[in-house]
């Protein structure tokens, strides 16, 4: 088989790997164009060679560059760059390929893979990378053969042996890669951060609440964010995102963003520290465990309503740390509760209902009465078949009597305001699935939730959640169905991928190295690493041990089969009372053996053995067996005395 034939197969596979890694992120036109160019290239490479005029290839390339420059925008560099890479690779495949051309194809394919890492941070990248490295290694080795002699022909078996044996290189390189990845220098402020752009925004949480717009709400089980923390009481799991203060009869909006202020919590519980790994969401809100005290993230701003935001939409995975005090209420140092009493006109029937429920009650009992009416009353929680209407709240309260949390919370807020109690709507998430193995909460899009906060003198803002308990909140990942549990196991992998690979930065590097140093200095060897660090540390330790093992094996030279055979021969004769002196030649040793030893067998053994040994040929297996049999046949009386 020609080396080039095999090289071609590997090259096509290699490029395909690079292509698949970016295919989902580039324009359909370019994917189609790439495939359209690659098919004739493959036809040309294997079936019937035809010559594509140079000028056509050049014209195509120039046209591509022009098109790319026209599309180029400062916030969109990567996609056009990957597009043009695809076309250049396909054009390269159309040419007659010299060793240099193969090498260029390898480089371009590698750039594709690098491009994919700027487009998506998905864990699948790891699979692409490993596949790519193994292919690259075999292909490059074959390329070295091809470059040495383009017409080289070798038996298929030898070619496969070469390709397989060169897989040893990436196998050894992988642990080294892990170590280098940990050790490579990081900066705290990358220059071209904007090149990192990630995926599509997901739905679930939105920055406005609109009633009566949609009939059905799909249960979206994608991850909204993960929170590394200890397990909390289920009642405390409210993830605060946004506060709505303005209602126009159908839609809730945010008009006021009160300035940050200090606040007081009447019944303080313990402080909870946590780290949030937020998925891209296309809005600016940072979610915190309800009653956040502190959020540590560059550019994050907190307001008096305990809402934290970033100046720009969050288009990629981010990580921030937070400190919260789980509590039902808080009292800001400055607040103007009067601002939370506005109601749109045309809600007379709701006002009447409220008045009938709260007549003569003080604010707190009034709120309790309203909550009791919605929570335990004739209302049903539902996600499907929601009424589409222009007066959604009235339809919910008086006609259909079912709805999702938005209806319950809106009704609660509007009714509280009609009773003269300042109230507002809070949007965020409720609950989450605790992953015992990873030590984190997975909060899904379907956990999106809204609730109400009412202002009571002496209490401040008090959380009231009127949505019935029908909203069953599973709190452990093991409580879902089989599919869900499997998904959550993969989620654990993705979680580790996010915290240890994607979010690995200068700070973590520094921390890891200092922990390592401290651990090594500490005579007790007390390891105090978090699970992620344990993973890395374990990986590094394993690779070091493997390396040490290889070095040790090389040091302790294993006896070759020939040496073992000779040792057996020596032992046999020693049993008969004859030892060979260290400097004595084999033949001289045989010559001085007394007559009672079957000299003939020994002579045959030595002659046969030397036939291989001094020619540096490994003795074939069947020959070894024959020689061993010869040794066994050397028998004789042990000399007396």
């Amino acid at each position, binding site marked *: 088989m020609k080396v080039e034939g095999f090289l071609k197969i590997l090259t096509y596979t290699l490029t395909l790997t690079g292509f698949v890694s970016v295919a989902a992120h580039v324009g359909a036109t370019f994917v189609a164009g790439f495939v359209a160019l690659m098919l004739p290239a493959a036809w040309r490479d294997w079936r019937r060679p035809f010559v594509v005029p140079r000028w056509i290839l050049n014209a195509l390339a120039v046209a591509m560059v022009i098109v790319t420059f026209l599309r180029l925008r400062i916030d969109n560099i990567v996609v056009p760059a990957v597009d043009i890479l695809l076309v250049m690779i396909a054009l390269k495949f159309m040419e007659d390929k010299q*060793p240099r051309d193969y*090498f260029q194809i390898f*480089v371009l394919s*590698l750039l594709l*893979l*690098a491009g994919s*890492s*700027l487009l998506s*941070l998905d864990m699948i*990248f*790891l699979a692409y*990378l490993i596949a790519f*490295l193994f292919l*690259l*290694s075999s292909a*490059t*080795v074959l*390329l*070295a*053969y091809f*470059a*040495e*002699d383009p017409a*080289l022909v*070798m038996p298929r078996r*030898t070619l496969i*042996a*070469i390709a397989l*044996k*060169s897989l040893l*290189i*990436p196998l*050894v*390189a*992988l642990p*080294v*890669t*892990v170590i*280098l*990845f940990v050790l*490579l*220098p*990081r*900066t705290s402020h*990358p*220059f*071209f*951060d904007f*090149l*990192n752009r990630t995926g599509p925004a997901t739905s679930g949480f939105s920055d406005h609440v609109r009633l009566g717009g949609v009939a059905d709400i799909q249960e979206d089980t994608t991850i909204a964010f993960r929170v590394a923390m200890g397990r909390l009481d289920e009642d405390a799991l409210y993830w605060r995102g946004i506060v709505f203060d303005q209602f126009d009869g159908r839609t809730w909006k945010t008009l006021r963003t009160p300035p940050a202020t200090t606040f007081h919590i009447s019944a303080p519980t313990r402080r909870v520290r946590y780290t949030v790994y937020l998925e891209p969401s296309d809005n600016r809100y940072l979610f915190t465990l309800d009653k956040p005290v502190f959020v540590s993230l560059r550019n994050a701003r907190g307001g008096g309503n305990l809402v934290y935001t970033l100046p720009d939409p969050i288009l990629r995975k981010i990580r921030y740390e937070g400190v919260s005090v789980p509590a039902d209420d808080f009292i800001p140092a400055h607040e103007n509760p009067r601002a939370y009493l506005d109601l749109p006109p045309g809600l007379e029937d709701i006002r009447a209902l409220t008045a009938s429920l709260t007549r003569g009650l003080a604010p707190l009992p009034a709120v309790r009465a309203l909550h009791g009416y919605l929570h335990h009353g004739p209302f049903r929680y539902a996600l499907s078949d929601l009424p589409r209407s222009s007066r959604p709240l009235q339809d919910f309260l008086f006609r259909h009597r079912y709805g999702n949390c938005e209806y319950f919370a809106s009704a609660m807020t509007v009714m509280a305001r009609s009773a003269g109690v300042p109230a507002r709507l809070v949007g965020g998430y409720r609950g989450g699935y605790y992953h015992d193995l990873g030590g984190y909460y997975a909060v899904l899009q379907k956990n999106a939730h809204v609730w109400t906060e009412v202002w009571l003198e002496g209490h401040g803002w008090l959380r009231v959640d009127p949505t019935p308990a029908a909203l069953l909140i599973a709190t452990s990942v093991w409580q879902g169905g089989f599919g869900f549990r499997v998904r959550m196991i993969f989620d654990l992998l993705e979680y580790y991928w996010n915290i240890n*690979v*994607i*979010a*690995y*930065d200068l700070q973590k590097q520094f921390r890891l190295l200092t922990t390592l140093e401290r651990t090594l200095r500490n005579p007790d060897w007390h390891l105090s690493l978090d699970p992620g660090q344990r993973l890395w540390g374990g990986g590094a330790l394993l690779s070091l041990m493997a390396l040490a093992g290889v070095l040790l094996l090389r040091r302790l030279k*294993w006896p*070759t089969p020939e040496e073992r055979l000779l040792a057996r021969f020596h032992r046999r004769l020693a049993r008969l009372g004859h030892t060979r002196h260290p400097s004595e030649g084999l033949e001289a040793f045989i010559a001085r053996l007394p007559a009672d030893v079957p000299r003939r067998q020994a002579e045959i053994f030595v002659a046969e053995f030397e036939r291989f040994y001094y020619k*540096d*040929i*490994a003795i074939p297996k069947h020959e070894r067996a024959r020689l061993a049999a010869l040794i066994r046949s050397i028998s004789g009386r042990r000399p007396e005395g």
Partner: protein
Amino acid sequence: MALTLFLGIAAINTGNNLVYMIVAALLSFLLISGFYGKRNLSRLIVDVTFPEEVFARTETLVTVVLVNRRRYLPAFLMRVSLGETSVLFPFLEAGHRATRPARLTFAGRGHQAVSPRYLASSFPFRFFIRYRRLEGDVTALVYPEPKPGSVGREEGRSRSRPSESGLDLSGAGTDLLSIRPYLVGDPLKYIHWKASARTDRLQTKEFTLPAMPPLVLDMARVPGPLEGRLSILTFWVLALFRKGVPVGLKMGEILYPPVHSPHQKHLLLRALALCGHEGEAHEG
């Protein structure tokens, strides 16, 4: 390597850990390939075997033997360079040996070392070609290049320019003296086919040649510069041996009495090859 650097800068400037991962992989490939390239050249033995007669300025087919003494690692893409020529051994399993022919031409006569001799391989990634110079010497005794020419009237006499037809003389009416293994240059008609079939090796008949008067070549009578004279004498030693003429050689004080035997031929060729290479011409 430029690519690694480029991606390294990209990694630092984007802070993208996946790009970091690619860079780490490429760097480790560089490291490992260096290690493998080095191991690939270790514990290999190269041997060269020459044919019985090697002449100067004449292309000679030699056999190159490569032995891989390693336990696990095969020898990949190994180029063995011998002076001007090189042989490629694409793949050799650990513990195996392989042979390849190579064409060598020596410029001069005498003991000639094949140099430089080294192993070269671009394995694994063609990033660089590694060399290892081979220790020890491989030398061949190179005979002078045979060139026809006059060896002087007195010695040559009527047969100073023997023609190929002279070959027909030998054997005719002479007795079979012995049968010996075939040597390169033996006429096909002298091959003893029966004996060859019996022994599985080509055998040549040797005849007594009573008709052939012995002949002594005298170096002093050959005109021209030293190398030219040696070439002419070499030609005649070969030609006369082939004809079955017992041939002797006189070089200054030293006289090799005329005998017809392969041993005599090699003795004379050796003397001619080493002529003027002090001390060595006298052995044999």
